[in-house]
Each structure stands twice: as C-alpha cells, then as structure tokens.
C-alpha cells in the first residue's frame, strides 16, 4: 500500500516548507521532496522604483538575513551607477557584514542545528532538543556566554547599520557614516571577545561531537549524509575564502577547479532548473547541464555555503581559522569533504574567521578614515549592475537593470538557499531511504531526516525548534487513495 508521509512545519516566517516522503508497497521510500512555498511578486514590486532604494528594500525580503541582501544590493547599485567605494567604505561594509555572519552562524550552531542535535542528541525527546536542552548539558554559564557574544555581534551590526535588523547603512558608492575612534575601540573589544568565544565553539565541536564515536560515525557515514557534488564559493586572488569581493570558483567532486568566473559573468555559467512542485528554482552548472537530483562527476548540481566555501578555497586568511581549517580536512579525510553534517563544523570555522577578521579590520588605521563614500558621477552611469557575495547560507547574486532615470526595469536574484536547494532535496531523499524501512519510523528517525536539510541552515528551517512543548512539525500519513490515515504530532 503506497503511503505519503508529510513533515509539514505548520508555522512560517518568510515563506514555509514541507517534506513529502512517498513509500512504496513495501513501506520503503520511493521518493522524497523538499517543497517550498514562496512569497510572490518581489520583482514586480521593485520595478519602477528608484534603484538607490534597493539596498533598503531588499532587507525586507527576509527577516533572517537582511544584511546579506543589503550588502549584495549595494554592490549591485555601485555597478548601476558606475561608482567604486573608497577603501574605508569597503572595509566598513565588510565589518558590518562579518558581524552579521557571526550573529547568523552562532544562532544556528547553538539554537538550531548542531548543538540541539548533537549536544542534546539526535534521538533525544523533541522537547529537550532545543536551546534549553543545550544549556542543561553545557551549563548555565556557557549559555550566558553564548547569549552575550551573540549580543556583541548584534551590537556591532546596530552600531554600523543604523537600524536594528534592517540596516540602512550601505549605499551606492560606499556607506552612510564613518566610525569614531571610540566606536573602533568598542568594536575591537567585542571582536576580541568573539575570537575567544569562537575558539571555545571550535572546542565545543571537538569535545561534544568529534570525540563522541557514535556522532562522528554519523557524520562520516556515506549511507545517510553524503553526496559527491560540485561546490561553489567566492575566493580572492590567492584562492583564499572571500565573502565580499572575489571570483566564484567551482570545483568538481574530485576537488579540481573546473570554473572560475567574475560574478558579472554568472549567466554564462549558471542556469536555473524549474520543477512544477516547488516555487524555488534549482541553480545548476550550465556546462554540465541539469541531469536531475543526482550527484557525481556528470551532474550539474553544486553545493554552497560553509561546506562549499571551504571546499573551493585554498585556505583562510586569518591564522587561528587557518589552523582550524587544516584540522578539519585532516580529520575528515582530505578535500573535498562531501559529508553533509560537516556543514556544522565548517560553520564554526567561518565564525572564527569572521571574528578574527573583525579584529584585523579594527586594527587597520584606515578604518576610522572619514572618506567612506564616493558620490556617483552622472557621466559614469551604466544602468546595469551585478553583484556576487557569500551569504551565511551560500552564494548570493543580485542583478539589476535600470532606465536612464534610475528607475528599476529588471531584477534577478539567485538567493543563497537556492544554491543548496538541489543538494537539500538529495540529502532528504537519501536520509529517508536509509532510515525508513518497511513503513517504520519514529520521532528520532524523522528528526534524523530533518537533520539532513537543517545542516544547510536553510532560511525556512524556522519552525523546527520553536516553542518547546508544542508541535512545530506534523507528519501526515496518507494511503494510496489519498485518505489521511495517521497524524503524528511533536509532543
């Protein structure tokens, strides 16, 4: 009897998602889909609006990663106006954005992903698999450190961003204000605390996950959380990881560079596949073509974000993060790492990089320079701008066209979560196939399937750990006639 299992988050923030698992007559998994319901009409909303408003408008696209869109948008508007920000303007953009990386990554590590799943345990009761369960395990003092250091990242964002959550800082040609010596000193202190805290976070990964054989086996298992895919990420001239400025580098499943291109050339190399069952498109490598949800040498599927970024780069530019990077590949068996759950470790390493880089920037004498913006010259107006940056959740492309009056005529965004969308679908299917046998599943198994996509930190993972004691996830089971025969609720 064919059955459909639906893992359906019942609440939403910015769009929502559900997982449908289809069983065959034997109760084994036949197929699985990770479906996203998106919000509509952003492109139409933007058309006809002044292009300089875009960096402020796009922060409303998503309440989770407003800085990523803000920064990508201001880079694209630089292109439209043909203006290049002064050196300090670029450094200040990077400074605010690094703080956002930390806020986003730290929240995922301690509240959403690896901490609840590994520190509390993948098969622990759902009501324990949350931030309180983590505090219960690691102790209240550590819980306080988590909250305090995350708050430092937010404070840096707010000091620069001008508005909590939705920054109004980055503008065509640079940023809206410089920082004082006093600001620099305050940010430096918070940055130093964040470096220490991120080193501690790397130790947490080591102590609670890598030294636990059962968990390490789960991470290294090729049966559940493993795909040999291509990877994409931004690198600088030395092929070191970049988040703001650089070229996109693509490596194949063997780790060999197969492409390196400027963000402006993205249309030559990246296409998007459409499926009728979801609103989000699937970016793939044009040269290889869309071969379906498959991995391997011939596939056009690529993965992005922390796993992809470390795989495409030849190192990190800050010393402690570089040490962590080297150990990561040593423990996980060399480059590239295909283990999906390694996303979490890579994310912790990126936190350390971001914190160290904040300290570096604060120690740069140029950071308090007053020249933070170049006013666009009307003679340089181009009417088109393309930017490519790395968002916490993956590569992010903004492409704008505007008419001679500076009003938006076309907009194309390839958002970070989309770069991993094919990977997420493959990961969910592989985990479901490996874990559900003869129609048998329980809360622990369903959580382990969720872990397959939670590793990517998709934006719509919001519901999976909310409100202890309630039910953020529903599993509906349908028979072959489409009749609901069972409903499983999180307790």
């Amino acid at each position: 009897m064919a059955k459909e299992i639906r893992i359906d988050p019942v609440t939403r923030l910015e769009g929502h998602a559900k997982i449908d698992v289809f069983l065959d007559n034997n109760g084994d998994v036949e197929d699985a889909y990770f479906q996203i319901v998106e919000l509509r009409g952003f492109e139409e909303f933007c058309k006809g609006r002044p292009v300089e408003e875009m960096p402020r408008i796009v922060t409303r696209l998503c309440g989770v990663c407003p800085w990523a869109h803000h920064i990508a948008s201001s880079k694209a508007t630089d292109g439209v106006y043909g203006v290049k920000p002064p050196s300090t303007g670029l450094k200040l953009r990077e400074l605010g954005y690094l703080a956002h990386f930390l806020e986003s990554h730290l929240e995922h590590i301690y509240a959403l992903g690896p901490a609840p799943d590994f520190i509390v345990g993948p098969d622990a009761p759902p009501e324990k698999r949350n931030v309180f369960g983590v505090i219960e395990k690691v102790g209240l003092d550590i819980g306080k450190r988590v909250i305090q250091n995350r708050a430092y990242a937010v404070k840096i964002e707010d000091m620069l961003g001008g508005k909590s959550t939705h920054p109004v800082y980055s503008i065509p040609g640079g940023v809206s204000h410089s920082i004082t010596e006093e600001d620099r000193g305050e940010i430096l202190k918070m940055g130093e605390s964040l470096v220490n805290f991120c080193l501690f976070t790397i130790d947490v990964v080591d102590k609670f996950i890598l030294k636990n054989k059962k968990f390490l086996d789960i991470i290294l298992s090729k049966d559940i959380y493993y795909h040999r895919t291509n990877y994409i990420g931004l690198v600088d001239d030395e092929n070191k990881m970049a988040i703001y400025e650089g070229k996109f580098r693509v490596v194949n499943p063997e780790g060999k560079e197969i492409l390196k291109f400027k963000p402006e050339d993205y249309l030559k190399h990246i296409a998007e596949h459409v499926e009728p069952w979801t609103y989000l498109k699937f970016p793939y490598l044009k040269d290889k073509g869309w071969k379906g949800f498959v991995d391997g040498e011939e596939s056009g599927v690529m993965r992005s974000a922390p796993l992809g970024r470390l795989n495409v780069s030849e190192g990190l530019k800050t010393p402690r993060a570089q040490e962590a990077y080297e150990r990561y590949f040593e423990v996980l068996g060399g480059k590239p790492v295909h283990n999906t759950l390694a996303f979490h470790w890579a994310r912790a390493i990126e936190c350390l990089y971001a914190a160290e880089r904040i300290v570096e920037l604060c120690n740069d004498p140029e950071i308090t320079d007053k020249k933070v913006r170049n006013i666009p010259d009307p003679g340089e107006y181009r009417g088109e701008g393309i930017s490519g940056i790395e968002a916490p959740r993956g590569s992010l492309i903004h492409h704008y066209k505007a008419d001679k009056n500076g009003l938006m005529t076309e907009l194309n965004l390839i958002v970070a979560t989309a770069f991993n969308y094919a990977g997420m679908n493959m990961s969910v299917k592989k985990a479901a196939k490996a874990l559900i046998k003869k129609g048998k599943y329980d809360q622990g198994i369903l959580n382990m399937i969720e872990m397959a996509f939670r590793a990517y930190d998709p934006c719509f993972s919001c519901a999976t750990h909310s409100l202890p004691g309630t039910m953020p996830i529903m599993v509906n089971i349908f028979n072959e006639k489409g009749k609901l025969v069972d409903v499983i609720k999180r307790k």
Partner: protein
Amino acid sequence: MLLKENKTLIFGLGNPILSDDSVGVLVVEKLDKMLEGEHLNVQCDNGSIGGLKILDIIKGYKKVVFVDSIEGKTPGKFYELPLDVLSFSFHMTSPHSINLFTALNLGRQIGYDMPEEIKIYVMEVKNNREFGDQLTPEVRRNLENFAKFIKERETGG
C-alpha cells in the same frame, strides 16, 4: 526621562512591503503619533524580528505589547490574543528558531530583566503572501479603530 524598566514597549511585527503583513507596523506607527507628547512611559517601535532578536528587544522593559497579524475568516477583525493561543500569531511562533515563550524563559534563565507582563493584539488579514504596499480594503478600513482600541486598553484613553 523614565528608565526603560518603568516603560511599556509597544512593538509592531510585520513586513512593511508584504501587503497585509504590514498591519502590526502600520498600527504601531499610528499609535506612536497618537501618543506623541502624552504617555512618556510608552515607547513604540516595529520590525520583522526573528530568533534571539526578540530577547534583545524585550529585555529591560516592564511591559511589552506586540501587535501582529493573524489568519482568520474576517479580515479587519481585531482583538487581544490570549497567550495560550499564541501559536496562531504569524510572527510570534517561528522566527527562525526562538519564539516569544522560549525567549522569555531563556532571558529569565540567564538572568536578564524580563518584562513582568506581555500582551498581544492581532488583526485578521487576507493577503500576506504577495509583495506590495497596499492593504486589502477591510484591513485598511479598520486600522484607525485598531490603533484606538490598543490606545484605550493600554493607556486608558
């Protein structure tokens, strides 16, 4: 000037460019104007907040009043939402990872000064999936009354 711990925060939740989703933001903006120069113990703000940001926003206030949208059969209808049915409020349940109750408990556990009282007012809405700056007529017609209703309940007039 009053200290934060003696103040009430009225916070509008929502996305100002997502049609009816903007209700919380627009109502609190109206309230802010209505209260100008009067109730100095009330502070108004708004945003699309998520995750631990709730904690950043509510800590230190004596009382916090959220204004949000809710799915319902009667667009434009507004009321106070009992905290035990909080899960139906759009922005209070799944903001990335941490909801209001989790944020409150977490804040108390780590020793933050958490509000003594929390309230939520909601308006039922129709279109919150499409980007736009227009409200559906039923929602727009009731904005002013919704703001007055909250003002009456929270400031006595």
